[in-house]
């Protein structure tokens, strides 16, 4: 990330930390993005607490919806939020917003946990973490718009498609369970999920045009 951009962001943060300030529109970042930047820059505990109170219960709920049991969901939440604290300085608002970034961390933590449960895996230079792919042409505005559009599109999906989209994030074994329950081959289940994702992609592209 361009250092100038970071500098600008941080200087605007100091002025605009009050919630709902007029700078919200100016720099286009969500309240959560800005809290996350504060944690990264200043190890700000009250900012972190706000992030925790917003995201941990939603992440827990999401993990339960995609197949984790209660204790795994809590554990993955806690471990993810520790990672949020430790890695906040690597948060790059050009490539992802707070919710995408935290989702990605939780995704990695869940993989870690599944692998550890199955077999010992050496920590090969932290395979649990990777960079969210960035387009060269990216800027914050574009990223913010993308994520807003996705959030809105998801809210307006027909229930059947929404269910399929959510099931794209299920654990593998849940896909097998769906296949068993619906008497459909696993390949068919996967291909319906893929079609639902493609339909959403088309809907997003139409919004663009």
């Amino acid at each position, binding site marked *: 990330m361009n250092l100038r951009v970071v500098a600008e962001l941080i200087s605007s943060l100091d002025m605009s930390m009050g919630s709902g300030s007029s700078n919200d529109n100016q720099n286009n970042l969500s309240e959560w993005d800005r809290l996350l930047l504060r944690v990264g820059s200043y190890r700000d505990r009250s900012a972190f607490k706000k992030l925790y109170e917003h995201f941990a219960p939603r992440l827990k709920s999401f993990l*339960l919806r995609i197949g984790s049991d209660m204790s795994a969901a809590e554990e993955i939440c806690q471990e993810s939020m520790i990672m949020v604290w430790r890695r906040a300085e690597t948060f790059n608002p050009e490539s*992802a917003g707070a919710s*995408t970034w935290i989702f990605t961390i939780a995704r990695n933590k869940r993989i870690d946990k599944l692998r550890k449960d199955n077999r010992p895996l050496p920590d090969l230079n932290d*395979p649990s973490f990777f960079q969210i792919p960035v387009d060269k042409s990216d800027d914050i505005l574009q990223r913010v718009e993308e994520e807003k559009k996705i959030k809105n599109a998801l809210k307006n999906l027909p229930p059947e498609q929404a269910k399929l989209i959510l099931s794209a994030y299920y654990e593998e074994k849940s896909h097998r369970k769906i296949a068993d329950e619906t008497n459909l081959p696993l390949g068919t289940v996967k291909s319906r999920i893929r079609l639902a994702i493609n339909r959403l992609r088309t809907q997003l592209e139409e919004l663009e045009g």
Partner: protein
Amino acid sequence: MNKQNTLTLVESLLIDYASGSLPLALEVLVESHISMNPSSARSIRMLLQIGGALMENSDPISMSEGSFERLMDEIDGGQQDEEIAKSDVSNDNDKLPLPLRNFVSEATFPKNWRRIGIGLSEQTVDFGDEFGNAKLYRIAPGCGVPSHSHDGNEVSLVLAGGFTDEYGSYGPGDISIQETGAVHKPVADADGECIVLAVNEGPIVLTGPVGRLLNMLIK
């Protein structure tokens, strides 16, 4: 497998990647693929954004009593040197995409090739993974892999050069998928060495007469 079917299987692979349900070997293959293919990188980005939105749209469920305090205790008591332990990989092997460099040491990469045919070498990549096996293949320009079928699905990623088989031509960053029982005979393009990462659910079964002999050697 034809291009259209391959395309849909790659899409499914990307979805499984975003949801975190791939075994390590395939996860690294997909990461390598997206580091070489901007269109798939955009798909992954969108899938992660959808995941983030689904997460944030979920109705909150309270964490158990005292969770935040326990978390802060852990953070305060934790080792401070964790960042240092996560230093960058010092592997400049530019023949391999970055995600793969964690798993193939720069020192052993040139030495580990094992000749298994004319203009054809392989080396095993150790993902410590119980799922299938991962190998790097190096094919000299114009040389081929003997006709073989697959006992278990195989996903291949071209890392350098290119090859052509019965189903199409593949260049750097392209994925080719062979389903169980599919037979193909890839030939490297004439203009350079071809390096492929292949992740297989089960052992490859070579089908030609030479191949049958090779079966005994590569097991």
